[in-house]
């Protein structure tokens, strides 16, 4: 038993590790600049400013991405030191065209020099001359296509030449850009692009920090409002767990008796009709039912009598209100969503229960029990039920993660701040740390569920033993 448990935990750890790799890979290719997200007031010019650097460093973006990287020889190992995603991209693309990192870097520095020089220009130069120069130079910083760069350089030259003072102050910087770009285009070393090189970055990298943080309960920082992710999802996790547990208990309470009764009535009217009705319920898309409920039962749009339930959301009572008041308020708001999560599961659970019971009821010992003169109730609930429960255990394991994932759309419709709505909002705000932390948490829950189910097998059926089991 212990050996089996150890093996399972090791496998679970491996699974989690692979999932973390997937999640991290998805984060790294996700669109949007993590530093910029949630800061609409920051324009593209913000890159290079002190604020930008501080934010980027707090998010850990100044570290290399992974333990190692595979690149061409021309690609620098130190690209991660450039904090902006756009800058990284334009530099990568320049390298990919010319294969000459030294020249690319020189070109980059000449632009950044010019850019900082523009920012520190004296006020005597009229702004109608400075502003276009600033805009063009700002655009130039993120360009990598030859025709665009040439066009912007020409434009810049004309704009600088318009004012004598401007030309005097920026002339050298502009010349530097022009000559460094010329050097870059004239000295391509494209052969370097085709030589692979493997770089080792050590353990202080973004993935390592993220994953070890995750294991110690620190899920990173939300990039929209710089709060720790754990604070953001603590309450949503609470509401989702409350809803899921309520829904699961409700589903099992309804479905198990139906399944057992249908098994005893095998082939009769109740069996057939309960099967058909539950099957129809199973096919009903829950987001449709939820929408219909919201449309018809939470508003007075179609007459006062249909406005039965509290409107969407969780109510407004403050946490200082008496416990029971808060409880009823929450219950009133949660009853429809819980119903919506519950009903699709009924068919699956009751069918499994029915199948398990039918098999059990055919056994000899049930006949013996009946022959001994036990009542039907005793036979079913005392002798058959525990053995018929066997297939349900798997379902119980899968029910919880399914409820967590399945409630996404229900939470969005009923506007309940659970994990689902948090994920949805985070996706819309491009807040990837939150999205992938939730994905990892969902995986952890699922793995735990499966592990618990396997242990429950042992409890439910003493015949099951995991010693020396050949998989």
């Amino acid at each position, binding site marked *: 038993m212990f050996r089996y448990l150890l093996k399972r935990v090791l*496998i679970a750890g*491996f*699974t*989690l590790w*692979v*999932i973390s790799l997937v*999640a991290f890979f*998805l984060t790294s*290719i*996700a*669109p949007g600049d993590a530093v910029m997200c949630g800061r609409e007031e920051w324009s593209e010019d913000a890159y290079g400013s002190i604020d930008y650097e501080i934010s980027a460093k707090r998010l850990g973006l100044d570290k290399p991405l992974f333990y190692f990287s*595979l*690149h*061409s020889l021309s690609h620098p190992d130190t690209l991660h030191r450039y904090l902006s995603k756009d800058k990284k991209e334009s530099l*990568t*693309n320049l390298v*990919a*065209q010319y294969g000459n990192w030294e020249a690319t870097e020189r070109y980059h520095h000449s632009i950044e020099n010019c850019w900082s020089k523009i920012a520190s220009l004296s006020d005597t130069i009229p702004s109608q001359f400075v502003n276009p120069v600033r805009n063009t130079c700002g655009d130039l910083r993120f360009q990598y*296509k030859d025709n665009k760069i040439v066009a912007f350089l020409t434009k810049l030259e004309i704009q600088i030449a318009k004012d004598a003072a401007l030309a005097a102050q920026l002339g050298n910087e502009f010349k530097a850009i022009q000559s460094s770009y010329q050097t870059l285009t004239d000295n391509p070393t494209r052969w370097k*692009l*085709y030589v*692979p090189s493997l770089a080792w970055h050590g353990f202080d990298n973004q993935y390592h920090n993220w994953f070890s943080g995750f294991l110690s309960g620190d899920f990173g920082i939300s990039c929209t409002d710089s709060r720790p992710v754990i604070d953001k999802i603590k309450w949503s996790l609470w509401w989702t767990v409350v809803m899921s547990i309520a829904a699961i208990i409700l589903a099992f309470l309804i479905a198990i008796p139906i399944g057992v009764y249908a098994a005893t009535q095998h082939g009769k009217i109740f069996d057939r009709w309960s099967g*058909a009705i539950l*099957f*129809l319920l*199973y*096919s*009903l*898309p829950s*987001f*449709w*039912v939820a*929408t*219909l409920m*919201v*449309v018809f039962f939470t508003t007075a*749009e*179609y007459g006062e009598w249909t406005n039965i339930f509290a409107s969407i959301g969780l109510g407004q009572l403050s946490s200082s209100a008496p416990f029971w008041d808060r409880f009823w308020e929450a219950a009133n708001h949660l009853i429809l969503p819980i119903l919506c999560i519950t009903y699709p599961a009924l068919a699956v659970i009751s069918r499994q229960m029915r199948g398990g019971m039918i098999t059990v009821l055919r056994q000899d010992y049930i006949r013996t029990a009946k022959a001994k003169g036990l009542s039907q109730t005793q036979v079913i609930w005392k002798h058959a039920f525990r053995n018929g429960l066997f297939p349900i255990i798997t379902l119980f394991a899968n029910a919880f*993660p*399914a409820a*967590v*994932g*399945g409630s*996404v*759309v229900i939470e*969005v*419709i009923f506007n309940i701040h659970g994990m689902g709505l948090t*994920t*949805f909002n985070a*996706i819309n705000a491009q807040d*990837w740390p939150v*999205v*992938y932390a*939730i*994905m990892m948490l*969902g*995986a952890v829950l*699922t793995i735990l569920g*499966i592990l618990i189910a396997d242990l429950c097998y042992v409890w439910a059926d003493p015949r099951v033993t995991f010693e020396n089991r050949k*998989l």
Partner: protein
Amino acid sequence: MMGKMIAWLRGKNNTRPATPARPQHYWGIVKRQFRNHRLANWALRGLYCFIFIAVFGDFLANDKPIYCKIENEHHFPVFREYAVNLGLATWQGEFFRKDWDEHNYQTKWMPPIPYSSTSLDRKNTNSKSPFGPQKIADFRYWHWLGTDDLGRDVAAGLIKGARVAMQVGMVSMLIATLIGVFLGTLAGYFGDYRLQISRARILCNGIAAFLSYFYGIQTRMFVLQETEAFGWELSKSIVLILFFFSLLNALVSLCKKIPFFAQKIRLPIDLIVMRTIEILNSIPGLLLILSIVAILDKPSIFYLMIFIGLIGWTGIARFIRAEMLRIRQLDYIQAAQSIGLKDWQIMLQHAIPNALTPVLITIAFGIAGAILLESTLSFLGVGVQVDAVTWGALLREARANFSAWWLAIFPGLAIFVTVSLFNLVGEGLADAMDPNQKQ
């Protein structure tokens, strides 16, 4: 080989001797059993209707006439549209200059619903009820299921949605079936102990994978991103990758000359496949697909189908694996092995065809699930274009407009009916193929 399947079926209940007069085909049995299932039969007929609507949707709802006569010239605009889309023809000049309702038609045959899913009826914006007043020229132009906020006809949208749903179900399940059958067969047929691969082959394929990644993808990344002709550049990459793999696999025999590399090692393929399935199933499905499609630069239904397929193969693989575990013990597989057939021959010609029929059940349920997943995603508005017309997207509009009950009822009903049809057919198939119920 079907005969062997029947032999197996018979083996289960040997009570009745085979009737030599009427040889029973396996499919014949399944069909007969399926016909006994009345509900599933009706569901199958419903499915035919659904496929008809999806295929011929352009003739059922369109703002162009099927046939019209203008200035003594005959036109078939709906047909012509297909030709134009295929690049075989162009529109005649007058169809460029005017909208479809502005011509002086001598004769005009409109489709039953004279609106297309994207055509905006500007006189009937702001969600007109099917029972309320509508500003229409002729009763023929009545919006039977109402309009949405922009004045798009809901009935036309539903018909367009049927096509999207069918595409989603077919494409995603095709991908899922291919992956699932491939991996499930390998896992079930070879198990953990029977797949022996020489070190040379593993080494060569490893090198090929590295070369393909580096030269086929990484160094070509810039070209692939920037090019106008993406398909052309992509196919260049694919050719390069195929070249690496075939070259290095050709080198395997050379490599085997070294005794160390000639040694065979056991590849626990079952373990690998089952671990992969476990990993995929450990992430709640909707969360996984939400987090994947959310990062796409250009969201599109097409990507959605592919990702649903790439995630949805686990059920099929498990099913096939279980079937394979059973089939590989059967006499005829051992007979095939004993006469010296190669493993891949046995798998392709003898094992897979017998394992495949029960997979139909999983596919039927899988299509239902894929349609449901797609409509959930387009309901949430994640991973699809903003203006895409799908059932889920129509239903989403109901959330913004509580008073338009027809926007809430009809698209949902369409999803519900389609999903139940597929589920019912799956049920019927499962019953029909269940050997315990054979009569």
